[in-house]
């Protein structure tokens, strides 16, 4: 089965196969019946529309039950622009797409504040608002009577630059645009921005820890999703020639969601097959229309539970999120892990009189410490002593109730986690927060997000600047993988790997961000002895590069030969600071942490 999948995947990714298919359709369409061309055009519109769900729901994990509204904005937009203002299609369709994108961008502000059920309901409500507007704003949309006489190839009223377009011409144009759109979206998914959408979906905290701005990332996802939905709607308008509000009800929103889910939320290939299937099915099988609702309902009820990855997961290998040719080019040249040194100008983190209260609970109570460069500092203490809270305060996850944080005497108190990450303060989490279906390499590459600067358009088109930055990041990624000795699993999805590798992957992601200081929350927890000694080697290496290191750890044997200084927290206050040797003798520490009788605390 896996072999079949690999072969099919190779086939659909084969350049020549793709060209053959497109050229075949371009020429073949002259010999097809008018009805067939029309149906194929509908399938293309559906594919375009599905791209917008891929971006918003598949990548970013934002559910939308009101996507028909963006589709509708695009459709009415171009219809009104061409019919009443007499604009050319060449202007009106792009404008309609931008208009839908703008609406989606505006919706992203309220939508960005809510999640899950609330988001589903909000988008459902938004779709209904659009529908009410389309029904009632009669002077603009024709109201319930609809808008007829939209320039359309099938009516013979479609003219571009003086030439009258036939349905075949329209199909050909639409085909080329859809192909471009699909490649754009695929390239986009294999870029820094595409990958960042996935991590925002899986863990907003982890996204922030490597300098990915969650809010802006989601807004971009909405805007792009709206753009594609708007294009799809615009092409739909000129395909049918008549628009009525009934074409933009919640049914259409659900239909596109069904197509995306059946195709597989992460699989562009699967979604294309699904879009074609659901367009052709009602045409070929008249009886289907009677049961359409029941079938859609059953699919929605069971697909995500039974066949989580849809057709795409069934037929194709999992999609990858690095452009393969860039990976191949990057492999030709290796760079040493010394590049980590260049980032690390010595940075001392200092906290002064810092306090954090949660309601009535004082998690950190008036703590002051310096965490110097060129050293490894360990933070130990019983559960609930405030270790993780301290790391959260330094890394900007939340601002302190009182007190200050400094980097080399520059005050950074209250800066966000994104800002701190951009200053080179990178942290890991107690339980690794990764994108489960990404490979080790893809996860590590997430760390490079803030170092790369190319934008969504460059990513989608694959401009040189994007390729160049990706190549460099991939080379650095290779050397980090080498350093962590995880090359043998680098191209496996992390969800299939044991815990130790996930920890290493997260540390790799932190290194990829080019840290000046690195804060590790229990990096050795769950590691085998072999993995632990490797981690110790890595940390010593990083120390020699001049990276400031703070680690929270319970595992005393791991710390003994590794750390230069240990800080013991108890109930939010510093109980001890000094060497490991002194700590073991300190009476206060023994009572609080090791247990009165000297029995090790679990």
């Amino acid at each position, binding site marked *: 089965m896996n072999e079949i999948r690999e072969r099919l995947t190779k086939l659909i990714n084969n350049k020549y196969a793709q060209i053959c298919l497109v050229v075949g359709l371009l020429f073949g369409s002259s010999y097809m019946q008018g009805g067939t061309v029309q149906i194929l055009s509908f399938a293309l519109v559906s594919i375009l529309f599905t791209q917008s769900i891929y971006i918003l729901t598949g990548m970013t994990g934002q559910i939308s039950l009101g996507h028909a509204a963006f589709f509708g904005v695009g459709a009415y937009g171009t219809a009104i622009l061409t019919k009443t203002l007499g604009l050319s299609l060449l202007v009106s369709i792009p404008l309609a797409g931008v208009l839908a994108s703008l609406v989606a961008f505006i919706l992203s502000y309220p939508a960005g504040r809510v999640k899950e059920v609330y988001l589903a*309901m909000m988008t459902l409500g938004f779709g*209904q608002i659009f529908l*009410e507007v389309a029904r009632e704003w009669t002077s603009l949309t024709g109201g319930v009577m609809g808008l007829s006489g939209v320039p359309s190839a099938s009516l013979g009223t479609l003219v571009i630059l003086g030439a009258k377009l036939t349905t075949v011409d329209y199909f050909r144009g639409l085909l080329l645009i859809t192909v471009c759109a699909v490649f754009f979206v695929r390239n986009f998914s294999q870029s820094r921005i595409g990958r960042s959408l996935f991590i925002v979906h899986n863990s907003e905290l982890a996204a922030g820890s490597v300098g990915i701005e969650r809010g802006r990332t989601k807004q971009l996802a909405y805007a792009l999703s709206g753009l594609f939905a708007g294009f799809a709607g615009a092409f739909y308008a000129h395909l049918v020639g008549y628009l009525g509000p009934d074409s933009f009800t919640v049914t259409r929103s659900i239909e596109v969601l069904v197509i995306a889910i059946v195709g597989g939320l992460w699989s562009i290939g699967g979604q294309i097959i699904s879009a074609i299937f659901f367009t052709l099915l009602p045409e070929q099988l008249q009886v289907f229309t009677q049961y359409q609702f029941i079938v859609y309902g059953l699919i929605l*009820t069971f697909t995500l539970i039974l066949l989580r990855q849809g057709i795409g997961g069934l037929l194709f290998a999992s999609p990858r999120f690095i452009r393969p040719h860039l990976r191949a080019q990057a492999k030709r040249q290796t760079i040493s892990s010394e590049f980590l040194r260049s980032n690390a100008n010595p940075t001392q983190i200092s906290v002064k009189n810092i306090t954090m209260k949660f309601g009535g609970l004082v998690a950190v109570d008036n703590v002051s410490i310096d965490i110097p460069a060129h050293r490894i500092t360990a933070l130990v203490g019983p559960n609930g002593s405030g270790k993780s809270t301290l790391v959260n305060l330094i890394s900007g996850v939340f601002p302190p109730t009182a007190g200050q944080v400094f980097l080399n005497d520059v005050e950074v108190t209250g800066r966000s986690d994104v800002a701190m990450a951009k200053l080179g303060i990178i942290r890991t989490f107690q339980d690794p927060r990764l994108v489960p279906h990404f490979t080790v390499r893809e996860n590590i590459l997430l760390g490079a997000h803030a170092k790369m600067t190319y934008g969504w358009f460059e990513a989608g088109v694959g401009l040189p600047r994007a390729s160049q930055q990706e190549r460099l990041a991939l080379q650095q990624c290779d050397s980090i993988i080498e350093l962590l000795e995880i090359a043998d699993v680098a191209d496996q999805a992390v969800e299939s790997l044991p815990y130790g590798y996930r920890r290493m992957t997260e540390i790799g992601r932190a290194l990829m961000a080019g840290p000046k200081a690195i804060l590790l929350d229990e990096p050795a927890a769950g590691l085998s002895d072999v993995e632990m000694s490797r981690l110790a080697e890595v940390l010593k290496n990083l120390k020699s590069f001049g990276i400031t290191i703070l680690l929270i750890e319970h595992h005393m044997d791991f710390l003994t030969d590794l750390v230069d200084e240990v800080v013991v927290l108890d109930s939010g206050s510093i109980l001890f600071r000094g060497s490991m040797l002194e700590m073991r003798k300190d009476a206060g520490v023994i009572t609080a942490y090791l247990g009165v009788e000297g029995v090790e605390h679990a």
Partner: protein
Amino acid sequence: MDFFISLVIAGACVGSVYALVAVGLNLTFWTTKTLHFGQGAVMMLSAMSTALLVRHGFSEIVSILLALALVGLMGVVVERIAIRPALKTTGSMGWVIATLGFGIVIQGITARFFGSQAVAFPEVLFKVQDAVVIGGQNVSMQYLAVFCISVLLIVVLETLTRRTVLGTAIQGIAQDIELAVVQGLPVNLIVSGSFFLSSVLAGIAGILVAQIGGTVDPAFGFELVLSGFVAAVLGGMGSSAGALLGGIILGITSKLVGGYISTAAEHGIAFALLVLMLALRPQGFFGRAEVNKA
């Protein structure tokens, strides 16, 4: 002024039904942090089957009881087949989609086998023309009965959750489901029960609305469940008193907008309120923001 008062009264009555829907949504939200997105279809199904049973010669009360039993059972089924497996595997997307799908299946089946035309709903509570005079206003007995039944049900339910062992158990599950399991509470049974009750409440709401409107059709529940959700959000998810107030505010607002501005805006206003409320104060008027220790 008379016009204004009659709008307020009609709004409050319809709003009380929204509140009933909202309380039903709250119930499952307490036990599983999920909602049945197909609740609209549940309302339709209960009203539709009542109408059909009465048409086939069953007495009104038997018809209603049978219809409610049917939708209650559907509630249990949807939790078993759509929500429980989805919660285990796919996070929130899974159950939102699955329950939505379940609702569409019910709606599709009804439309397929009973036609998509509106069915006349029998006059179960009083006659359309029955009315009493309150404060110089003619108030329809049907509206009044709907209001009383809804409010009474909400009050009874609220008392039960506050005063009984079962209520305490539900609150316990709402606080911490894992702890409830460890404590030996029959969590699965209570969860199933909450879905049963939630669907029955939705079923009653469906019957009440069908009574006021006079007809029921397969697409009938869609806006109703959205309105119920708006009521729940206005009041703050999980709060019964909030739901009641939220429902009545929503009912009156939309009637007033419909009466004075335009009937077209009557539908839109609920969704506009929803989007605004979620954007500005997602915890509702009465809810408290959750404190998160990251």
